[in-house]
């Protein structure tokens, strides 16, 4: 009963901020202030506890996959909308789901969490399971050094009360087993996922995980509960325990296959004997892509495929996943990506041209491509005009145009072509 007032106030603020368009974090902030115990009390109701999904790349996609796999097993899942991974966004998401008395009907919470806030949030949310995806060079202007990010994840993993699921093929995250056993911890248990070594060796740029300059690589082989064996344009073959499963991937690429292996390993640990691989693979068949990750949207009589990037790893792995040089390409990048030094670490061999380059950093991107001799049709910094230039091109034989976009330009582009009213969710 003590939460009725804060919840009602929070909801009123939520309605008001929505009406003005935006401001999703404020209501959560207000409820936290009015009733500090609110969140702790709500999450204590989850029978299967709370799962944190951490990583430089793939958080939204994997959170989505894991959510659908657990729903496929009949669980009611509470999850945060794609990208709403800061503390106030998570509070706001909880607020929209609870009854006025603070009751929340869900069996489990699956939350993607920003690395920088993971440890702090773990104090309130007491996660039972922590899934760590990868450590890749990301937002150095914010994190300074990549090993700082690794430690944020590793330190959070140590507080899980039941399970840690980690990436066998990551130079930092593969150390978690050693780290926890050195501490003499009995809980959490540690399980790994990974990709078959041959698959990594055959990938043009490997996995693009960050180099670890502070520790020697482990020599002892690490077993993976879930291992990606192969992938193609339709799906992935993943071995879980002794069993093989073919799953449909919501977006194509080696990294999405690894995300699927991570989701399956986590589901297997969380569900224990209730885990059913057939139910899990069935859940993948009906999954929609996460926002901007291989999504196909209507654009007049054509389709647009969004390929979103946030950093070097996501751009390289998404380029590598393209089956061939795309026929019609727009690249959009603005000041939402502050430091673009890493563009010079990218191999652009997958592009044979770019039709339109747009956004405030279009010139810097064009300068990079000129160093590789990749021709650029038009540079039009204004996104709206750039989209009109793309519209004016003849229909591509593949039926779709490819837009390679940073997060901020993706959100704007979606709005411009008529997908802006949707709430950020799946």
């Amino acid at each position, binding site marked *: 009963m003590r939460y009725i007032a804060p919840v009602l106030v929070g909801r009123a603020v939520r309605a008001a901020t929505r009406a003005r368009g935006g401001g999703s974090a404020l209501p959560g902030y207000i409820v936290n202030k009015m009733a500090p115990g609110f969140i702790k009390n709500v999450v204590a109701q989850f029978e299967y506890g709370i799962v944190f999904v951490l990583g430089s790349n793939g958080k939204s996609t994997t959170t989505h996959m894991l959510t659908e796999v657990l729903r496929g097993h009949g669980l009611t899942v509470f999850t945060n909308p794609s990208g709403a991974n800061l503390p106030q966004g998570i509070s706001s998401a909880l607020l929209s789901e609870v009854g006025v008395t603070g009751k929340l009907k869900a069996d489990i919470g699956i939350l993607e969490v920003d690395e*920088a806030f993971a440890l702090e949030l773990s104090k309130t949310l007491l996660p039972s399971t922590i899934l760590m995806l990868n450590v890749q*060079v990301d937002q*150095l*202007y*914010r994190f*300074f*050094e*990549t*090993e700082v990010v690794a430690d944020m994840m590793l330190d959070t993993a140590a507080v899980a009360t039941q399970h840690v699921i980690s990436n066998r093929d990551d130079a930092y995250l593969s150390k978690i087993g050693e780290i926890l056993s050195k501490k003499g911890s009995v809980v959490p248990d540690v399980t790994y996922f990974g990709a078959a070594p041959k698959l990594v060796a055959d990938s043009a740029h490997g996995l693009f995980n960050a*180099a670890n*300059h*502070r520790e020697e690589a482990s020599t002892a082989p690490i077993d993976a509960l879930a291992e990606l064996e192969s992938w193609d344009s339709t799906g992935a073959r993943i071995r879980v325990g002794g069993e093989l499963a073919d799953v449909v991937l919501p977006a194509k690429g080696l990294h999405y296959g690894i995300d699927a292996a991570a989701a399956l390993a986590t589901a297997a640990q969380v569900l224990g004997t209730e885990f059913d691989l057939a139910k899990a693979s069935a859940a993948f068949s009906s999954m929609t892509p996460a926002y901007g990750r291989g999504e196909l949207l209507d654009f007049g009589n054509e389709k647009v495929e969004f390929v979103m990037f946030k950093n070097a790893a996501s751009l390289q792995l998404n380029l590598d996943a393209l089956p061939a040089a795309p026929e019609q390409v727009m690249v959009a990048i603005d*000041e939402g990506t*502050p*430091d*673009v*030094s*890493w*563009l*010079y*670490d990218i191999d652009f061999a997958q592009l044979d041209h770019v039709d339109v380059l747009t956004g*405030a*950093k279009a*010139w*810097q991107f*064009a*300068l*990079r491509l*000129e*160093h590789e001799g990749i021709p650029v049709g038009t*540079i039009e*910094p204004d996104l709206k005009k750039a989209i009109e230039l793309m519209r004016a091109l003849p229909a591509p034989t593949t039926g779709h145009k490819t837009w390679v976009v940073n997060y901020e330009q993706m959100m704007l582009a979606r709005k411009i072509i008529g997908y802006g009213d949707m709430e950020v969710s799946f």
Partner: protein
Amino acid sequence: MSSSSAHSVSILELYPEHLEASGERGNVTALRARLERAGHQVDVVQHTIGRRLPKDPDIVVIGNGPVSAVRAVYADLMENAQALRSLADDGVPFFAVGAGAELLGGGITLADGTVLAGVGIFPFSARRGVPRQVGYIVVESAQGTVVGFEDNASEWNLDSGAVPLGVVTSGGGNGNGREGVIAGSSIATQTKGPILPLNPSLSDAVIRAALERRDVAYAPSAAHAELDRLAAKSREVIVANVKSVFTTI
């Protein structure tokens, strides 16, 4: 590895696996592209830990990296310190960024107070652990306006009489109104972006210094026009957006 015709130019890239964390590979890319478009053949030779330092490079390039990478390369660098100093004494231009530049300077005082002695090619010492400076930077230098992106928590204190690369008009630079330091034809800077693709005049200064030692002429031509045009446009936008505030939460 090297096919040395009279006009072949050799670029020595120091510790690319460790010290190119901020896209410094792009500085090599820029030097290579401008040399090739001027008709020169280019050999890029990489030096990694445990290998023998290649002989007679025309240009030496080093970049930025985390403290763990600095520690990882340190012993190897010290073994090669004398050889590198000899190259600098012979007038081979060095182009050094961030942590790599600091290793080639007088020394680095780390945030915990530990001091790492440097190679002593550049007349400055670095102090880590000062407030971080992140964002676009604009510097007025002898080669004109230099622009780029800075992201460091390092203060550079120049030795008495040492000459900075330039004067900061926007951003933090060395932490005292100046940016970088020069030593003969060698340049050390904290500016990323990467800096050379964005600043063709700086690339050309490095290339000229290298080729003059071999009595080879260098002049940008029509083949450089598109690189220069796109760099100029990029620079315009950077100067216009120089006050962009970046989240550092």
